[in-house]
């Protein structure tokens, strides 16, 4: 499988990374080099093999569904580039 220029632009949009027109060809060849390398996996017979979900044989721990942390909004927004009254500020989303 290999990606064409349109796919590179589509991936850029999905990943929310602006890809300028003059960058498309470069990304296309780099991504195809990596996908070409990954293609080797096709040789492996994985019939009846389970996909790994946890590298150590363990169940994810659960905890009680209780609030155990929080109550400090000023710390949460402390590193934000733009805030007001402990809210993150973004461009208008809804008209």
């Amino acid at each position, binding site marked *: *499988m290999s*990606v064409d220029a349109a*796919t*590179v632009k589509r*991936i*850029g*949009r*999905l*990943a*929310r*990374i*602006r*890809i*300028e027109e003059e960058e498309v060809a470069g*990304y296309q060849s*780099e*991504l195809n*080099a*990596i*996908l*070409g*390398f*990954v*293609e*080797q*996996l096709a*040789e*492996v017979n*994985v019939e009846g*093999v*389970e*996909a*790994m*979900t*946890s*590298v*150590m044989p*363990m169940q*994810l*721990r659960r*905890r009680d569904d209780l609030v155990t942390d929080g109550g400090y909004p000023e*710390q*949460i927004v*402390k*590193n*934000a*580039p*733009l805030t007001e009254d402990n809210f*993150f500020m*973004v*461009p*208008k*989303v809804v008209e």
Partner: protein
Amino acid sequence: MTDLTKLSLAAARKGLTDKSFTATELTDAYIGAIEAANPKLNAYVATTPEQARDMARASDEKLARGQGGPLEGIPLGVKDLFATKGVHTQAASHILDGFKPEYESTVTANLWRDGAVMLGKLNMDEFAMGSSNETSYYGPVVNPHRVEGSDAKLVAGGSSGGSAAAVAAWLCAGATATDTGGSIRQPAAFTGTVGMKPTYGRASRWGTVAYASSLDQAGPLARTVEDAALLMTSMSGFDPKDSTSVDLPVPDFAAAVERGVKGLTIGVPREYRMEGMPQEIEALWQQGLEWLKAEGATVKDISLPHTKYALPAYYVVSPAEASSNLARYDGVKYGLRVSGKDITDLYELTRAAGFGREVKRRIMIGTYVLSAGYFDAYYVKAQKVRTLIKKDFEEVFSAGVDAILTPATPSAAFAIGDEALAADPVAMYLNDVFTVTVNMAGLPGIAVPAGRDGQGLPLGLQLIGKPFDEETLFAAARVIEKSTGDDFAPTRWW
């Protein structure tokens, strides 16, 4: 007075408890060394001398009272990937511009609990994505080692290149690092230092900037095996804040260092004998086996048939996880923000300006392999291959092998700005061919300096162990360390 920075961590610990010198004197020695060397080596991206002196003073008070933790007064460097409260934490990326966390990672909190002193934050490949430290927003780290008679700058390896260079050049007594595909062990091999990636789940991932969560593990870089063991004990431990942290007692790893290898069976996997492997790597490997045999180990040829598929599977799994983990950098919550005409524009422009090329490439690969229609063919397939890789190891261990010896890297350190590597991303990825299997299977692995190449540059061997059996690795690595008759110290030029 002798140069305090040249002491091993273990010797510095002894000097502090014997009151031969103070933590303040030791810390000042390191601060001075960093100021002199960092403009040349670029190992630190931020230094915290005031905080270091405050911590050292507090250690001195404890030591004076005969108190103090296992690392009391020991000055350490911290990879820029670990959240350190109120201190530069940017994963060496532009997108985390100005980020100073309001919290402390569990691993660093454990070190401070045990008395260690923080010298500053160490350079790395951006978001730990790289094998040469050249993807850092702060520029490459320069390896303290270079070819005799040459002033060509060599890479320190990656992604923990700053940690490795700082340890090798006596700019800290030890350092924290992380390893997703080889990022502790490959820089260790390139700088003549010791690097341990513990079993997945041994050290908490909480507060460490995530790259590929199912593979990331923190571990130490140090100048000796004993030093690495001392650090590993403090860094490890169960943490309820990390859902994959394992609730097991932490051994006193340093107590295992002199245990020897008598009676152990060391596996030699034939699939690691790669085509075109330099003769000096092959010779180093044989020499390592001879040393272990001389101390009473038995060597056994083994097969790990899915070895060659580990790296391609890694380049599906790790970018997939990265594309998801790095979705949080959006110009809204922290770090860099580039304004746009609407919210999507803001996201796209911020991420285009904030991420470097290698990071963007991996996010895009990850986005692609997880996208509709490709998920089964790439991601599910890679996770199945991962099951097979782990099974290879399980079969070998259940057949009586205690640890596996392999080369750590396919070559010694290469030049900064190598054109062939820059032109081909896959060629750079091959640096991790011997280390990445360990991450895919969640196993512990240690890199220990074992010899030098034809130009005098350090080369490392890797030992791979059973889950949660880091102790055997420390013991076997110590046998190699003792057998080399070389301290792998760089000749100072900086």
